[in-house]
């Protein structure tokens, strides 16, 4: 199936060419997005077919391009197939969405050439089977997504996001480059097969693991390498935001799994500890950021950071179990991580599509200006609600299934021999549980403020439903959220060949269990019956609704309500004044912000009186316009980036002096370098 993917990539490149040549015509949008959708469908089928083939060995395809002695190696194994499914499913949904949503784009020629290329690059990263190819396509993926982020380059914020993104992407690629250099060894075996055959020493393996954690982690959004992500992901057009958050972070996770599980040789137990702690901290901090943020797309970007943290917790657990030879437990943790990667693609793409629809319908991304959209966007609110419930890990949806599997893996940790892991894993488990609770709060806030209540601005009151393509993409993905939630056994079985090939073990087959139960370890330990829960929720919900409507009072009573101390609000004749007394997004998040964010993020709330600057509090009974200001900082900037920038500035200043030396000194440097190299050669060469 490898050639199919390569032909798909060629087709995408051709579509990019079409977008470049005729990007200004309206029909090109339909051609490019429709073509991308069709090609992604073919690639998706190919990946499924590959996964269904079973254990048959797959030949590596070598094209006579690239480095002359290496060629371009492509290989499509089970791991690659799973990630191709995630990538192309997300790409297909985003393309379907963009057929409709792309109509609102002012300058489509800035997007159409890069969009198919971005998808092609992600596919090629996944099938690449040598370090050279991998890095070339990785860099192509970064650059294409950068170009897409810069589509709205006339906004100052977007340009800043672009610079930050470019810097972080290049730093990450540099780390991966060094990791591959170490793995290739002194003889430069850059194809993955040779790297698998060569067993790197433990020290080399450890350095490689740390470098990959930095390189792939910066692309995926691990704290503190996440700073570009909440700026760049929201700045792109919504279909691209969905691809970047839903799919590109998964490609980064693929890179981590490919290198650390497949290429870096034997695993030391502390690798798992490092990855676990990074993942746990990322999960909690990411969702706390999301809770404090008011921009809907930035909320979703921060929530991506949280989910990436959860996936890395699963990967860290798998590493820890693998190091101690507990392969079945490792397979469970890896299955949970992969399952969550798939789920995150499903619901995060849906949410970004919905956010794009909101942005177009209201002209704003500010949560505090939205409200009541469920009445104006009645159809697209349903998939949004399903996706929000799924990301909040409510049963019987898919987010719950994967997080439940992750917690099952965490519960197996007491069997680990190392004391450090025995202590750390439950602590990380607590972080996971905390972040799940925060995620629920975050999406209650997101959905509740945006869709429920009354419109907080005229724009929200005048919102309209989105087009049929966008709705189709959202409904499709939301349906998959329900399907994966109710039938998690199918997904677990689908992932079994991956864990089998990477770890030599897999989670027991879930096929044939009654009531579609999943039993990850043994029936005596734990089981989960999503179908029963689904039926129970459906039946009890319907009964409750029926009872309320049948037996409850149907009489609508209008009565004055308490106006929070304001006079006039009690009068039913002035309903608009009541809108301002609804919960605001900052108000809803305030308890959590005060308790959890006042130390780490130095979150501060201030009430500003606009009457006179020097006045702290107006005299009693005198009405004064006031506003509420909530401030918080990202500690990663103060702790890491500001000192780093200062250090680089200092080094640059020092090095700058080298530009103004005499010719004789330059000659002297050349001479000294030559002598030093010769001496090195003579002494240790």
């Amino acid at each position, binding site marked *: 199936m490898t050639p199919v993917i390569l032909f798909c990539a060629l087709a995408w490149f051709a579509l990019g060419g079409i977008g470049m040549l005729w990007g200004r015509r309206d029909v090109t949008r339909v051609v490019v997005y429709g073509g991308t959708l069709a090609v992604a469908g073919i690639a998706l089928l190919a990946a499924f077919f590959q996964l269904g083939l079973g254990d048959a060995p797959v030949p590596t395809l070598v094209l006579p391009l690239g480095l002359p002695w290496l060629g371009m190696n492509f290989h499509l194994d089970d791991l690659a197939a799973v990630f191709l499914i995630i990538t192309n499913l997300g790409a297909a949904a985003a393309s379907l969405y963009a057929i409709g949503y792309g109509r609102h784009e002012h300058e489509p020629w800035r997007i159409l050439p890069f969009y198919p290329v971005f998808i092609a690059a992600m596919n090629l990263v996944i099938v690449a089977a040598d370090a050279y190819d991998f890095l070339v396509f990785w860099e192509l993926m970064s650059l294409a997504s950068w170009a897409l982020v810069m589509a709205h380059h006339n906004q100052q914020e977007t340009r800043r996001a672009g610079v930050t993104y470019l810097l972080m992407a290049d730093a990450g690629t540099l780390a991966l480059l060094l990791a591959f250099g170490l793995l290739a060894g002194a003889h430069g075996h850059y194809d993955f097969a040779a790297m698998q055959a060569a067993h790197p020493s433990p020290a080399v393996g450890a350095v490689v693991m740390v470098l990959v954690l930095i390189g792939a982690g910066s692309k995926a959004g691990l704290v503190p390498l996440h700073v570009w992500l909440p700026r760049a992901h929201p700045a792109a057009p919504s279909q691209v935001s969905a691809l970047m958050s839903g799919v590109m972070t998964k490609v980064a996770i693929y890179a981590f799994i490919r290198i650390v599980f497949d290429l870096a040789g034997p695993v030391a137990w502390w690798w798992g500890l490092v990855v676990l702690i990074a993942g746990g901290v990322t999960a909690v901090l990411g969702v706390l950021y999301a809770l404090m943020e008011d921009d809907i797309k930035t909320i979703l970007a921060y929530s991506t950071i949280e989910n990436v943290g959860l996936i890395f917790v699963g990967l860290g657990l798998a590493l820890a179990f693998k190091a101690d030879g507990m392969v079945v437990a490792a397979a469970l943790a890896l299955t949970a991580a992969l399952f969550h990667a798939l789920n995150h693609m499903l619901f995060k793409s849906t949410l970004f599509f919905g956010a794009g629809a909101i942005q177009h319908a209201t002209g704003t991304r500010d949560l505090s200006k939205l409200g009541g959209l469920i009445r104006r966007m009645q159809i697209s609110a349903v998939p949004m609600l399903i996706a929000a419930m799924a990301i909040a890990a409510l049963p019987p949806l898919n987010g719950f299934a994967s997080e439940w599997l992750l917690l099952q893996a965490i519960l197996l940790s007491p069997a680990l021999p190392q004391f450090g892991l025995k202590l750390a894993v439950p602590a990380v488990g607590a972080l996971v549980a905390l972040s799940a609770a925060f995620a629920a709060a975050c999406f209650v806030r997101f959905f509740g403020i945006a869709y429920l209540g009354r419109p907080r601005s005229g724009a929200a009151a005048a919102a309209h439903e989105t087009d049929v393509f966008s709705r189709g993409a959202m409904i499709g993905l939301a349906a998959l959220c329900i399907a994966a939630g109710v039938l998690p056994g199918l997904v677990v079985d689908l992932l079994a060949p991956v864990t089998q090939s990477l770890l030599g073990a897999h989670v027991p087959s879930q096929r044939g269990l009654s009531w579609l139960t999943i039993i990850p370890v043994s029936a005596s330990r734990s089981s989960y019956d999503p179908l029963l829960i689904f039926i129970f929720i459906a039946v009890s919900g319907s009964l409750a609704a029926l009872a309320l409507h049948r037996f409850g009072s149907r009489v609508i009573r209008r009565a004055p309500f308490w106006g929070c101390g304001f006079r006039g609000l009690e009068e039913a004749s002035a309903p608009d004044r009541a809108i301002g007394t609804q919960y605001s997004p900052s108000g809803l998040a305030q308890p959590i912000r005060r308790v959890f964010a006042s130390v780490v993020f130095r979150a501060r709330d201030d009430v500003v009186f606009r009457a006179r600057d020097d006045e702290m509090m107006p005299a009693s009974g005198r009405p004064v316009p006031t506003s509420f200001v909530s401030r918080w900082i990202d500690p990663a900037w103060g702790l890491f980036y500001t000192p780093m920038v200062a250090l680089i500035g200092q080094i640059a200043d020092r090095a700058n002096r080298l530009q103004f*030396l005499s010719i004789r000194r330059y000659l002297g440097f050349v001479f000294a370098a030559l002598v030093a190299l010769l001496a090195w050669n003579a002494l240790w060469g």
Partner: protein
Amino acid sequence: MGFLAPLLSTETSLSVAHVLAGGLVLVSFMMLYQDRLSSVINVLALHSAVLGFAVGWQAIIQNAPELYITAGLALGFKAIVIPLALHRMVEKLGIHRQVEAVGGISLTMLAGIGLVALSMVVMLRTAAHADALAREDVALALSVILLGMLMMVTRRNAVSQIAGFMSLENGLILAAAGAQGMPLVVEISVAFSILIAFIVIGVFLFRIRERFDTVDSTTLDAFRGEMQ
């Protein structure tokens, strides 16, 4: 002179080549402690002459007629024409009597000895399997190159720097001639590049002189306002 070749045993011919290469290193050392410009130029002429003989000898023992051209170029052009031109230039500039302050002759000589030792050790390490005499030849050529660089680095006067550069290039040619047969094209292009460097630096010298009344290259730094 190819007729000489059968008369000599391989060993003798190689020792003569060795002696000539060693002579080139010796002349490089001589150049290091000359403090008058005219004597630096004379030593450069001697340096090129020794190179000419060394390459000529290589032409005989390797039976490589194209090396005669190289030897001829070295003898005629580098040993006679360029030194004469340099002498004229120095006289025109009026600095032929000038004594150049060469800081720490003994230190420079010590550094030079260190460089020769370094190149010997390097060759011993990197070409351990090669024939001993060939290895020594390359080592000597490398030390001529390093000594030329040392000359360029220690001198302030642009004319002495040219002399250092020329001796460096002589070292390159010695190494290339020692290796069995360097293509003539390469040799000619090297010779031309040297010629062009010579012309450019010569023109440059007069320009410096016109502006600053001296060819001491440190004044350039002062002019740039970047004296440390």
